[in-house]
């Protein structure tokens, strides 16, 4: 290839990269890793004619917002709100993002969000730091690493930002103002008790856990074991753990079912492990001609799990209030920015749960939104105080 040809080729390649990056970048100059949830509401004076339930009876004017007859007054016209989720996942897209969209419609604020490329604290730190450098100062963050997230939160506080941790607990001491998440212990405990009811209060259970180094997994394991301890005729025949991917969960659960041919129930208390359980059970019933029903309880509302409930091989799943996490976190951040402070620093606000089975799989979202409205109504009385 001649020298000139090489130069032209290099120029074309460079132009392609530049044009490609320009096309990927958004018009408002925010990160390429996420789109704004609702670009229709660009200012807090916009009409809140959203299709989401809570927005129907709301209106906002200037920095005053009226929702269901309740008036909210905020000091600023615009808040630099930002949400981070560690990696692409349907729970975020289908639930948390819906909550953010509901908030945007109700409060007329715009929320930027970013989704990490991989579930690591390193990627989370880099992305959030870049967003902070762009001027965002109110963050709702799912801590990718329950130990490492606190370092990021502390750093953001030192830079004058407000932080809400959501989705899961992080290790003590808490460096975020509040945590909005389900009570994983209660969920695991209640889910196990319900599973044992199906089993007729006797038999053996396979307990499926995720990352053993995660404080949430430890609490879930405790919840399952405490519930089982209340029933003398029920025992855990095997615990499988350290499941980081759906495929790993699928393989390990398949092996555990084979190792325990007389097992009566199976419980998964993490979202990824639950998808693995769903795939493993689907495979089990399809390939084992003499398969008997194994009672199964899972976590979260993934497609795999919901398909399992519809098909009858999963008996229930514990639905988390992702909508509430997305909605309430942003309301709290606006308060915090206005100078309100938590009544108890680092307090865990339980966003609630709903047991989803074949009977309510079409209607459970209404129950979740009712819980959200209840929590929002207690912000000034139970969660925050004037600073």
């Amino acid at each position, binding site marked *: 290839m001649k020298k000139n040809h090489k130069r032209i080729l290099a120029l074309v390649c460079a132009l392609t990269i530049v044009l490609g990056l320009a096309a990927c970048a958004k018009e408002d100059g925010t990160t390429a890793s996420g789109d704004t949830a609702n670009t229709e509401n660009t200012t807090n004076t916009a009409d809140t004619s959203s299709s989401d339930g809570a927005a129907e009876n709301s209106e906002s004017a200037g920095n005053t917002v009226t929702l269901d007859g309740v008036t909210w007054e905020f000091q600023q016209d615009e808040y630099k709100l930002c949400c981070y989720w560690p*990696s*692409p*996942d*349907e729970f*975020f*897209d289908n639930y948390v993002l819906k909550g953010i969209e509901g908030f945007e419609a109700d409060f007329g604020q715009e929320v930027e969000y970013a989704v990490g*490329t991989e579930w690591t604290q390193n990627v989370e730190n880099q992305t959030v730091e870049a967003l902070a450098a762009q001027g965002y100062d109110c963050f709702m963050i799912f801590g990718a690493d329950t130990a490492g997230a606190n370092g990021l939160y502390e750093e953001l506080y030192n830079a004058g930002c407000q932080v809400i941790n959501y989705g899961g607990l992080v290790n003590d001491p808490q460096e975020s103002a509040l945590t909005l998440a389900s009570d994983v212990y209660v969920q695991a405990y209640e889910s196990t008790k319900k599973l044992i009811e199906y089993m007729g209060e006797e038999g053996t259970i396979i307990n499926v*856990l995720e990352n*053993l180094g995660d404080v949430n997994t430890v609490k879930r394991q405790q919840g399952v074991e405490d519930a089982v301890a209340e029933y003398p005729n029920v025992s855990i025949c*095997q*615990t*499988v*753990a*350290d499941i*980081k*991917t*759906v*495929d*790993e969960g*699928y*393989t*390990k659960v*398949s*092996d*555990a079912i*084979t*190792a*325990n*041919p007389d097992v009566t129930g199976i419980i998964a208390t993490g979202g990824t492990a639950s*998808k693995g359980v*769903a*795939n493993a059970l*689907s*495979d089990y019933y*399809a*390939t*084992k001609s003499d398969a008997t029903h194994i009672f199964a309880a899972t976590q979260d509302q*993934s*497609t*795999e799990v919901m398909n399992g409930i519809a098909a009858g091989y999963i008996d229930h799943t514990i639905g988390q209030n992702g909508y509430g996490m997305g909605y309430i976190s942003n309301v709290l951040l606006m308060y915090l920015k206005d100078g309100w402070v938590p009544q108890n620093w680092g307090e865990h606000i339980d966003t609630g749960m709903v047991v989803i089975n074949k009977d309510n799989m079409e209607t459970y979202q209404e129950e979740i939104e009712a819980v959200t409205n209840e929590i929002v109504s207690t912000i000034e009385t139970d969660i925050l105080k004037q600073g």
Partner: protein
Amino acid sequence: MSKVTNEARQTNRPAGKQLSPLKRFFMEPYSSAVVAIVLLLAVFSISTDSFLSQYNLFNLSRTASIYAFIAAAQLMVAVIGGMNLAVGAVGSLSTVLMGEMMQNYGWGTVPTVIVTILVGGICGVINGFLINKLKLQPFVITLAMSFVYNGISVGISHGMPYELNEGFDALGRQQVGPTSMLFILMVIMVVVLLIFFRYLRVGRDVLAVGGNATAAALSGIKVDRVNILCNTASCMFAAIAALLWASRSGSATSTTGSDWMLYSFAICAIGGIRLNGGNFTAIGFFCGAWILTMIRNGLTMMNVDIYYEQAFLGVIILLAVSLESLRLKMAEQMK
């Protein structure tokens, strides 16, 4: 002459002195993998009731078969002294494209399978072309391309799972006599690879390039073409593995392939395939896939302490590969 390694043939033994069949076996590079399989089989079947159950053997055969296809993706570049760090990323991209074609475009199973494998092939052509033209290490190129393929995969899917065509899971779940359809596919694949490397000129050219690329080029072999061919085959195997995995699990998500890279290297290494190129042993490769599958399965069957499971896994793999070191010492003494 075939370049398939056979240390026994290369040994300078005095004329007329014949080795016993057992000694001849231990001169073969795959013998340590066979011994490891026998030992693992003995340990796991003695220590657990269900390991040799028909259903577990069926499951084992399916998992080992898919691992073999994943390892074949690495094997095809390892034989020329290369590597493919994008094995999992191509698997992820293939899974997502397959899901898109089935769920969002309503394509039938056959055209979807063909296009998915072709897409895998295109990924391999791109890898091979870049390695040839940029004259950079395969490590760098395939690492960079793994980010590209993963990024496209996640960008298209947003982490959402796909619904597969009805009946697509039959291949991954079908039982054939005492074994699975996937196992039969695995055997066919290993036999095809054996014929390719032992009896076809192009296969011998590949091994020659892996043995010494400069010498191969001087003898008239087009090294660049071999490089592209091997990278293409590598990514096509990754795409096939993705199809088989989706067929077995009944689900297609972008997270498929996230742990394939390490497995692909491990199976080749355990099976006695030198990662710096130039050799292929069909039996070793076959055994490598089974060893890794049996260890993981056996640990769950034995209900080992969950907190130490990774440590057990590492120790058993180490013991299995240590047999190769022992075999080499024995082979040296026999010389």
